[in-house]
């Protein structure tokens, strides 16, 4: 009984904010003391189609930035984390990896800003990607570091003595074994980048309008209906990722390798 209650409680705690946002995005004119908005229609959603709304543009800018940051961090982090894990100075590098989280990304952005200004990267799409990568990359290292363990090293060495080249060992041994770690890193970094606001706002200096920046703009304008609408767009990719994650992370391993 308690277990069931806890399960329902969990579902409600996840589902209620989503349902509430959806309702708000459909609402218009919500004055006190009405329990619900006076009008409920798709008028706000039509705002998405307007050329001056730039919400769709912000959505794709966010998607582009997050995908780039997630792909770079996942691939480069995979290679660098291996060097760090088997290094004599592993602990030293790990302490360095925690620094962005001790300082907070916004403070990191303040530190970066000077260098971004002199290199002309402030207010550019590339600048935001690089800034986010610098914060997300250490996180990728932290995710991967425990994947590289002595047993995996022995398996890798065994593959070499069985005749496997570095590429074959990567493709047929390391990649299949690291699938879960790679997906975890990709999803986590994507989410960090997707919801990033402070750093993006500072380095983007208002010229790079991501979805989170748009949400905050609507909130500061006290336009709760448009804010809810952009929030609906904001939670779409994470929900999709959550679904894919659940499907892929717990999949049954293939039993055959390709020749």
């Amino acid at each position, binding site marked *: 009984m308690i277990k069931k209650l806890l399960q329902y409680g969990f579902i409600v705690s996840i589902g209620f904010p989503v349902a509430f946002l959806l309702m708000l995005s459909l609402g218009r004119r919500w004055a006190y003391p009405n329990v619900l908005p006076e009008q409920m229609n798709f008028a706000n959603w039509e705002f998405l189609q307007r050329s001056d709304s730039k919400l769709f543009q912000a959505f794709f800018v966010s998607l582009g930035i997050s995908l780039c940051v997630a792909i770079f961090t996942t691939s480069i982090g995979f290679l660098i984390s291996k060097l760090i894990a088997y290094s004599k100075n592993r602990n030293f590098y790990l302490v360095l990896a925690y620094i962005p989280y001790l300082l907070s990304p916004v403070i990191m952005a303040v530190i970066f800003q000077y260098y971004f200004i002199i290199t002309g990267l402030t207010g550019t799409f590339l600048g935001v990607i690089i800034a986010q990568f610098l914060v997300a990359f250490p996180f990728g290292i932290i995710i991967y570091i425990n994947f590289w363990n002595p047993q995996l090293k022995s398996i890798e060495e065994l*593959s070499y003595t*069985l005749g496997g080249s570095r590429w074959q060992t990567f493709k047929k041994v390391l990649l299949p074994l690291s699938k879960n770690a790679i997906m975890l890193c990709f999803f986590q970094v994507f989410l960090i980048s997707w919801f990033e606001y402070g750093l993006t706002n500072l380095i983007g200096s208002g010229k790079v309008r991501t979805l989170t920046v748009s949400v905050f703009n609507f909130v500061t304008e006290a336009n709760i209906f448009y804010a809810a609408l952009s929030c609906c767009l904001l939670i779409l990719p994470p929900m999709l990722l959550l679904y894919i994650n659940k499907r892929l992370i717990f999949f049954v391993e293939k039993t055959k390798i390709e020749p």
Partner: protein
Amino acid sequence: MTHILNIKDLYKNFGKETILKNINLSLEKNTVLSLLGSSGSGKTTLLKIIAGLESEDKGELLLNGKNLANKKPQQRNIVYLYQEALLFPHLNAFENIAFGLRLKKVDSKVIMEKVNHMLEHLDMARHAEKMPNQLSGGQRQRISFGRAMVIEPELLLLDEPFGALDAITRGKMQELFKDLAHKMHISALFVTHDLKEAIVMGDQIGKIQKGQLLQYATKKEFYKDEFSGVQKEIDFWKQINNN
């Protein structure tokens, strides 16, 4: 008899610590040399150097008369087997054995034939489709042997391969390995810290202690050596018998 492996004046240091000192070793073709040594004696380092997974500081390694210097592990045709079976967890028993053949891009029909033949040899044919986590420790070790032997390496290096098995399984595996080694004309270095296992498994015996190796010309010579521990063992069992 021809020597498949010759090691001359081999040295290895880790920092200031000397791990291997003036190692000289020769292994005849189609024979098994047992290397007896306690933990930290340098036996694993020696095997890793032969496999190309560690580099020597000084010395010469010859396999079939050819110098192994600067040869990568994948070019040596020497397989190193660990104490754990280390099966690839994403592949079933059949594919684990086929792994080395697939790397060499051997024809699928030949792979099928060789792997099935090996599974028969190992008495594991009915477990071919099982994943490693569905196999017992002994079964995993059998597959591990099959995976190494199917590619017909010139030399097999076994680093306490039965160390993690119980006494009964260990006995069965020793018999199986001896049988396979004889049938498949295998040359191997078999590292163990167990005196009885060293005697059972090896055609020849060597002892490695504090980084120095002593290779006995015959087993008899080993039994006669008062520091080999054989006499102590015999006395112990005699004492038990008398009591």
